[in-house]
């Protein structure tokens, strides 16, 4: 299968995502340019993190108008798989492929740290390699990750099990403290109705190599590969699997 990572002006996790998909997960991966109309045959389009257009207006508000995003929209409507990470999630919300909006973190500060998230639905193409209730340790890095949706939308999202990840304590319980950015219902990631579009605030690509402290983020990539791909991941690049004496 082939992954396509979209580059917007101001994307800054584009190379990271590319690195993990290509070098760690050993997948055929291409970069997609926001001004093009060509998805280059990607089976899964990934919108990476960053500050597209500086996030000066609202996070993700301008990127959604780029030429390539019109293709991505059509692709998603036809059931194509789209993964939005952090800024990518914000873009999907702005684009209307996912419901809701992002507000500033509850403490009004940028937050970069490891959090725990609970896997709520393992029946999506993004999570089938994990299991329901599983707790992942994975980093976040955002200013606007405080998920909001009007009550009716939220009810619909919950009813249809579209919440895929929630912020939680290490043991999986949901608390106000663990809900670091103040999201409604501790929501960290949701899918669309068709289950083919996932947006999440945490960065799975930052938790895909033991060397960097966690491999929990691979659940998302492994799932996609299992769902879409013929090829199983080759044995990962040795250096990335090596443990270092991590403290936390």
């Amino acid at each position, binding site marked *: 299968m082939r992954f396509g990572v979209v580059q917007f002006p101001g994307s800054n996790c584009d190379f990271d995502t590319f690195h993990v998909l290509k070098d760690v997960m050993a997948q055929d991966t291409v970069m997609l340019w926001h001004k093009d109309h060509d998805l280059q045959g990607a089976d899964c389009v990934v919108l990476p993190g960053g500050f597209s257009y500086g996030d000066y*207006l*609202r996070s993700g*508000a*301008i990127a959604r*108008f780029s030429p390539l995003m019109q293709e991505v929209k059509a692709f998603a409507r036809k059931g194509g798989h789209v993964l939005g990470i952090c800024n990518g999630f914000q873009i999907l919300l*702005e684009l209307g492929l996912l419901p*809701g*909006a992002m*507000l*500033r973190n*509850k403490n*009004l500060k940028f937050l970069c740290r490891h959090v725990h998230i609970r896997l709520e639905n393992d029946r999506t193409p993004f999570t089938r390699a994990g299991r329901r209730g599983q707790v992942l340790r994975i980093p976040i890095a955002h200013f606007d990750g405080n998920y*909001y*949706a*009007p009550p009716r939308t939220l009810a619909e999202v919950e009813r249809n099990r579209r919440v895929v990840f929630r912020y939680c304590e290490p043991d999986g319980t949901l608390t106000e403290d663990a809900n670091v950015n*103040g999201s409604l219902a501790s929501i960290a990631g949701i899918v669309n109705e068709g289950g083919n579009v996932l947006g999440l605030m945490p960065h799975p690509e930052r938790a895909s190599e033991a060397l960097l402290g966690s491999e929990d983020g691979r659940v998302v990539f492994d799932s996609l590969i299992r769902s879409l791909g013929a090829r199983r991941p080759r044995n990962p690049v040795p250096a990335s699997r090596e443990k270092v004496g991590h403290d936390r």
Partner: protein
Amino acid sequence: MRVRILVSFKDSVLDPQGQTVKNALHTMGYAAVKDVRQGKVFEIELEGIARKEAEALIPEISRKVLANPIIEKFDWQLLK
């Protein structure tokens, strides 16, 4: 033509920035301040376009670009 567009959170959406400003003002002793809401303002210079057209254009770009209708509302006025 100069237009001012005000974008602010809908009343149903919490505005933590406004709350923080309010708290700061209270701490400083400004007890008369009962509530603060914070929003954005855009001042836009339009050229080569008739007033009528402008009156259609402004709500369009406000809805499409400047405000996110899920959480925000907008309001505008022609300045001159």
